[in-house]
């Protein structure tokens, strides 16, 4: 029975993240497990019991990480172990096992039992230290206990503060661990994450295959998340840009109050759609606990609908003129094609000029308000689709930026984030070449036309390119 349990346990690699209290063990686990539900605190003892984070694919565990409480009475544990020093080193793990068995119900060693148990069950050791603080001999006690366990081990240098004592630490840790790596869970990118897994794969030959599989899976998962993000962004763009708000009115024409209320309804819907998009993106990237973001990113009336905000993510007046001109030229080119070029491409030229002028005007006139014709005795006030040329770029810029921040954001972070300066975004997110391609779709949506699948695919590709550019 005991053997069966042991076999099952050893089926996949397990890693116990251990160390002194408050050295970022939970941050590392949170980051590696892509789970922001882990409590991370400045107070020692935030993690009270060990917690397993299995990487499962279709229910099958590929590897498991353990977040553990920090050492509390390491000296007394080592003292006990030394008292029971066996005759040969190969028996040392049995002594540690005996310690756990003897003190399982001893409240005094609760934390040590919690952290030693997964190791004695076969987990590899990931010993975490804060390399922004100087090395101290008190750590040697912990490292000695871990050495007694006889499991493959590595040390991670976490830089919590601004100082850097890595060299000091490396000299000391190198005497106890086969591998010493730097990993900052707060700034680690997806690539850093994969590199760390590569290092973990080297700890034990039998684990290499599983970890390589895990790397492949996580790579695929990352790719899927990117694709899902683009899909939801494009869906939201289509939905928002073609959105028409309708409201029944009583009289022959809409009163000022009816018009204002309809405008408000329209704006609220647009803002709600953007909020829903953000939630969706956060869900895709497994960020369930971001609370402060809404204050920064979610739009209020002054946000999306003011020139000030428009200039952050949207286009400048001149860029708008160019975009408007190219949009007009697209329409004009259609006319040229119909006449097989016999208009000497005059239509494109006229279209371009009209489009450009339209863009200038459109900056202030956001959307059209229309009274729809009588339909079985009913009159409707209709608002939308948004005719402002800048609007799609504001919306898209915000969406891509938000998605890129969320995609890059470590799950160990618990703070909010801020927008960067405007020049960065207009250049990085949507350049002139992209704009031309995007505008083809925007023109159709603005007209309330259905966009062809092929065109939408091209639209997605442009957005994907921009998104990947920001992920780098």
């Amino acid at each position: 029975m005991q053997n069966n349990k042991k076999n099952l346990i050893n089926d996949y690699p397990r890693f116990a993240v251990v160390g002194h209290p408050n050295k970022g063990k939970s941050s590392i686990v949170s980051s590696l497990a892509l789970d922001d539900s882990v409590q991370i605190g400045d107070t020692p003892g935030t993690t009270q019991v060990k917690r397993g984070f299995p990487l499962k694919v279709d229910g099958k565990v590929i590897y498991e990480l353990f977040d553990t409480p920090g050492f509390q009475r390491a000296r007394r544990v080592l003292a006990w172990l030394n008292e029971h020093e066996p005759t040969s080193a190969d028996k040392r793990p049995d002594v540690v096992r005996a310690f756990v068995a003897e003190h399982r119900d001893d409240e005094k060693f609760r934390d040590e039992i919690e952290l030693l148990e997964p190791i004695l069950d076969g987990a590899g050791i990931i010993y975490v230290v804060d390399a922004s603080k100087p090395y101290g001999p008190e750590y040697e006690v912990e490292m000695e206990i871990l050495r007694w366990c006889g499991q493959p081990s590595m040390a991670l240098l976490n830089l919590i503060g601004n100082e850097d004592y890595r060299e000091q630490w490396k000299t000391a840790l190198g005497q106890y661990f086969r591998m010493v790596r730097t990993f900052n869970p707060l700034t680690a990118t997806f690539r850093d994450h994969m590199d760390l897994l590569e290092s973990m794969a080297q700890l034990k030959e039998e684990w290499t295959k599983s970890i390589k599989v895990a790397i492949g899976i996580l790579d695929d998962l990352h790719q899927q998340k990117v694709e899902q993000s683009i899909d939801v962004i494009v869906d939201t763009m289509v939905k928002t840009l073609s959105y028409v708000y309708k409201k029944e009115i009583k009289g022959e024409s809409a009163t000022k109050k009816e018009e204002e209320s309809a405008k408000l309804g329209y704006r609220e819907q647009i803002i709600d759609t953007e909020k829903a998009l953000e939630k969706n993106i956060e869900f895709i990237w497994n960020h369930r606990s971001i609370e402060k973001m809404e204050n920064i990113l979610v739009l209020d009336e002054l946000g999306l609908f003011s020139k000030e905000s428009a200039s952050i993510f949207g286009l400048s007046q001149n860029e708008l003129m160019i975009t408007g001109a190219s949009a007009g030229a697209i329409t004009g080119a259609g006319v040229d094609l119909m006449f097989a070029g016999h208009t000497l491409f005059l239509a494109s030229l006229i279209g371009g000029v009209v489009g450009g002028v339209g863009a200038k005007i459109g900056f202030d006139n956001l959307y059209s308000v229309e009274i729809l014709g009588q339909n079985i005795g009913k009159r409707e006030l209709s608002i939308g689709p948004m005719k402002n040329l800048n609007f799609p770029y504001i919306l898209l810029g915000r969406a891509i930026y938000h998605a890129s921040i969320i995609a890059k954001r470590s799950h160990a972070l618990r703070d909010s984030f801020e927008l960067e300066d405007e020049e960065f975004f207009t250049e990085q997110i949507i350049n002139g070449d992209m704009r031309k391609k995007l505008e083809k779709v925007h023109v159709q949506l603005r007209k309330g036309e259905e966009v062809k699948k092929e065109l939408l695919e091209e639209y997605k590709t442009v957005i994907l390119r921009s998104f990947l550019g920001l992920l780098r």
Partner: protein
Amino acid sequence: MQTKYNKFSIKSYLDLSQLIGEYQGSHEENRVFALKNERLLENPKKLLLLWTEKNIFRVRERLESKDFTDYFSSLSNLLAFVFLLIGFFTGLGLLSYSGNSPVNIIYFIFIAMVIPLVSMLFSLFSMLSKGDLLNFFTLFIPLTWIEKIFTFLPSSKKLDTLNEIFSEDLKKWMFIYRLQLFSILFSIGLLFGLLFMVATQDIAFSWSTTLKITPIAFQEILELFAKPWTIFYPNAIPSVDLVELSQYYRLGEHLNPEMVKNADKLGAWWQFLFMITVFYAIFLRLLLAFLSLYFYRKQLDKDFFSIKGVDLLLREFQTPYVSTEAPKVEKHLEIKEENNTQTKETTRRAYSHIVGWNFSSDEIRLVNDSKEIQGLEVNTAGGSHSYYDDQKLTENLRRTILLYVKSWEPPTMDFIDFLELLIENKKIDEIQVYPLGTVGRYYESDRKEIAVWKRKIEGLKSKKVWVIDAE
């Protein structure tokens, strides 16, 4: 057990469309479902149909497919009956023989062959066209107008709403397919009318035209019409004799005496008319019906996979479900705010003992010099000392103690054990814990680090122990 998921129809489309609007399932649930039905992973349509069947109970409102099929089948049945009846009575009307003048077969040929061919041509145009052009062609199809009449019925409102779900292409193929079916029913009615009249009356068929067509030329035309059945039904091709005999002139007081003399032979025309109806009105229409059914199904297939959300669902079926979260929910620790009850802002200038927790003697001396603090005795604890060494040390300490600690290292239970030994020592009057920052920061500590120490010391509820917060 045979399940319904093998049947793919407009109902499947509507059911999936309604279900997916209300319920999508999580990736995990969808992947588990797909793995349970792994043999269907290569057949996404069947997998989607099975998924719909298993989850349709989640739809809270009445199934739209029920409304649609109820209304649509009753409308279709009614129209089918009407078309059959119209066909039958058209047949009766065309073949009604007053006894005075014979029945002109040209009328029948016109209804059984020319009109169906023209109508089929419009159907073909409609099949090939889209948008406004399609709308233009359908204007020439009577079914368009008949169905428009039905849209005034109150019960058709629901159908209007449902119609919005369908794509324009699907609506087109539904209409064209329906048109072929009703046309076939009309022709079957016409055929029954012909057979009924032939069986119940002795009809004298003739042909008559103002155009100058000789019987031989007319026979050649008819022979051309009859080409498709020349081999297997030669009796259904009118002979030159019969054509000559059947020519009827409106002017003249009496029928051609030859006609009257050979009245029994004139009935032979019915076989030709029968085949005209069977081949042109029914057989060709059937071919068109199969063609439109093929395209209708193809479009339905295409639209089925274009339902919003199906892409994601299929992706979730195919994509392994990866989870990295902990199954065990963490009990979050409640952190109390420090209230500074055991805090001092300044140190004494001298202490009975200065103890460095995890510090070396040299480091302690450096701090003392830097802070200008004196101690009668300087000791080290923690670090490489054993617990028992520390125990012994606490017994020898007296009066006032300054305890240096590393501010960035939070107080472990090992330290608390040591502190409790000091508290228990009755000879000690006061213990001041001084959290120091790194040398690089000139011993200055972070606020957050100090707060951790304050909270821990306050938690001991001892009036003997104080934290130095020398900000």
